[in-house]
């Protein structure tokens, strides 16, 4: 005697009815329209990255690594990207890059304002938090099916799946960063009659920037880890290489795709981390150095 003999809950039927019977017939045009901006940005980036010659692209990445991290990283970037080209995956890597850039841009556009809203009101945060928990714990395969039903197959649905998967860290870290701004600084801004916008723009956001950038870095990494899964529903690029290899039991092909993803991941991670740290440190670091050079006035003066 178990509870299931008394009552079976047909949750799969309910969900099927809800998605097939209600969501898909009524909202499919709406969801179709939603992917227009995604597709637009993606195609533009894809075309751009495909247009830029490999050597120029490598040079651009090398310069970015050098500015953001240092000489060693620049060297790694050059060798890594040349390696990708030599294993014949340059075009796929650029497709993956355009997918990731698109996903991260959408994550930032949605996630940072959402994080700001969450930081402003405890109620909003209480509502948002379980949603984020669900987004992070539900296996991505679970929402691939409804996404395909609503958006169809192809690159844009892949990006939408990636955005759902990669969005939580940027929201969480934006919220955390804004809430972590010293209370007396917020009080000071308020005591001078700042509006909420002035406070956000002049005080809270700059001081939370480091945390927000850390969130963006996490989002970037999650987006990268999603490329293989997105390929299942029609995403191209390196993920497709891995999937094809998997389907054909072509170990070599899958490995090559995997190596490409790892190299791209390391380069993007280091550059974005470097930018995050530099961005928030530069002013103070520079001025600390200046402080050593320029003699300071003594604090004591005769009255």
């Amino acid at each position, binding site marked *: 005697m178990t509870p299931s003999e008394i009552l079976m809950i047909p949750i799969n039927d309910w969900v099927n009815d809800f998605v097939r019977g209600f969501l898909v017939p009524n909202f499919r045009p709406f969801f179709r329209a939603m992917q227009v901006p995604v597709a637009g940005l993606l195609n533009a980036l894809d075309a751009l990255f495909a247009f830029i010659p490999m050597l120029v692209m490598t040079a651009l990445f090398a310069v970015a690594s050098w500015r953001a991290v240092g000489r060693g990283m620049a060297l790694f970037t050059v060798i890594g990207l040349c390696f990708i080209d030599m294993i014949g995956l340059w075009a796929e890597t650029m497709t993956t890059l355009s997918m990731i850039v698109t996903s991260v841009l959408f994550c930032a556009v949605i996630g940072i304002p959402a994080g700001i809203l969450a930081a402003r009101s405890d109620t909003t945060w209480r509502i948002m938090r379980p949603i984020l928990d669900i987004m992070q714990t539900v296996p991505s395969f679970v929402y691939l099916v409804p996404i395909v039903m609503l958006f169809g197959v192809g690159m844009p649905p892949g990006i939408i799946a990636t955005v759902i998967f990669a969005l939580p860290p940027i929201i969480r870290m934006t919220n955390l960063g804004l809430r972590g701004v*010293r209370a*007396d*600084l917020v*009080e*000071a*801004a*308020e*005591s*001078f*009659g*700042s*509006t909420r916008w*002035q406070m956000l723009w*002049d*005080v809270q956001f*700059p*001081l939370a920037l480091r945390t927000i950038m850390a969130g963006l870095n996490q989002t970037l990494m999650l987006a990268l880890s999603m490329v293989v899964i997105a390929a299942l529903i029609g995403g191209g690029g390196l993920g497709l290489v891995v999937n094809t290899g998997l389907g054909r039991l072509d170990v070599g092909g899958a490995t090559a795709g995997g190596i490409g993803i790892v190299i791209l991941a390391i380069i993007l991670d280091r550059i974005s981390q470097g930018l995050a740290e530099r961005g928030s440190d530069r*002013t*103070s670091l520079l*001025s*600390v150095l200046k*402080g050593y050079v320029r003699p*300071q*006035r003594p*604090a*004591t*003066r005769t*009255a």
Partner: protein
Amino acid sequence: MTSKLCVTNAMKFFGDRTSEALERLSLGEGKAEIYEATGVTVGVHDVNFEVEQGEIFVIMGLSGSGKSTLVRMLNGLVPPTSGKIRIDGTDIASCTPDVLRDVRRRKIAMVFQHFALFPHRTILENVAYGLKVKGIGTNERLTKARAALEQVGLGAQADSFPAQLSGGMQQRVGIARGLATDAEIILMDEPFGALDPLIRREMQEELLELQRKLRKTIVFITHDLNEAMLLGNRIAIMKDGRFVQVGTPQEIVAQPADDYVAAFMADIDRGRVFTAGDVAQPAVIVNAGSAPATALAQLDRADADAVHVIGAGGLEGVATYRDIARAVRDDGALSDAVQNDMPVTGPDTPLHQLYEAASSGLPVAVTDGEGRLTGVVEPKVVLAHLSGVVPEPEPEKPAA
């Protein structure tokens, strides 16, 4: 006369069941009992005061007395549970957010205990912040901010960042930021509490110096009684969210309202609170041309030990009882007994600067700006005041 800042029946409770707490409070229950019964913390309880233009009003209390909450109620950072807080007649407790913002931008500025400077902005930008919020153009606000920085002596540090400055300098920037907006009221929440004792002293002097020039209306929060005595035109002693006593430093030291205040005053450096003018008694005087015997008779009548001699050019000197008696015995003139190098001081000199003058044993002459004798301070009176045994300095000699 309208006050710059007028607080009536200000209350602040933290918690949900505030009306119940209010009821219990009116029945005379204490803070702890109310918290036990309702979970409501009484932050500020029925505080009333007015601050006049150009005055430094010090709110003194130990931590947890509600002073920080109270000062935040004055610019609406903490909205009061009930009561009125009027700034130039505008009640900021009941006005719209727009009006409140306008009051904050134009009339009232705040200086914080831990400076609260924006670490990502230069000193100059920090000072200009209030002007930026007001929407003043870049050039004008930087010019004004530079002027405010000059006032606190930090013009050279304009392009530094807060982290590069010492605590004292950072707080000067905090003060400059408050001055830059031309607000007439400045709230200072334990501004020197985080500074070293020596720097604190220096900053107190500087604040007084600035205040002499600018005549702002200042509400100053502190837990340091000596600081309160030094800076305050008036002082409010706060305990458990209410004002126990409000008065001038001299009034509070001389007549503490209750044991709590009295216990505080035990630690006070009385020598810095009272001035020569506060403790001066009517002088015993005699004309330079008088006979020694007349002077002696005067001293006997006043039961004093020394007499001040007034000549054509004003105060000439002082003569002790013993010297005059000798002059009488030797049949000499009064001038034989007069010492010309007598201790003299002004009425505003604090007692702690009178120790040396009083050590001569002669009464210290108190003179006004034109050198006229207005009274004397007997050495024994100085000591008596320091020890606090003279509760009522004035009415002891009705007929001198």
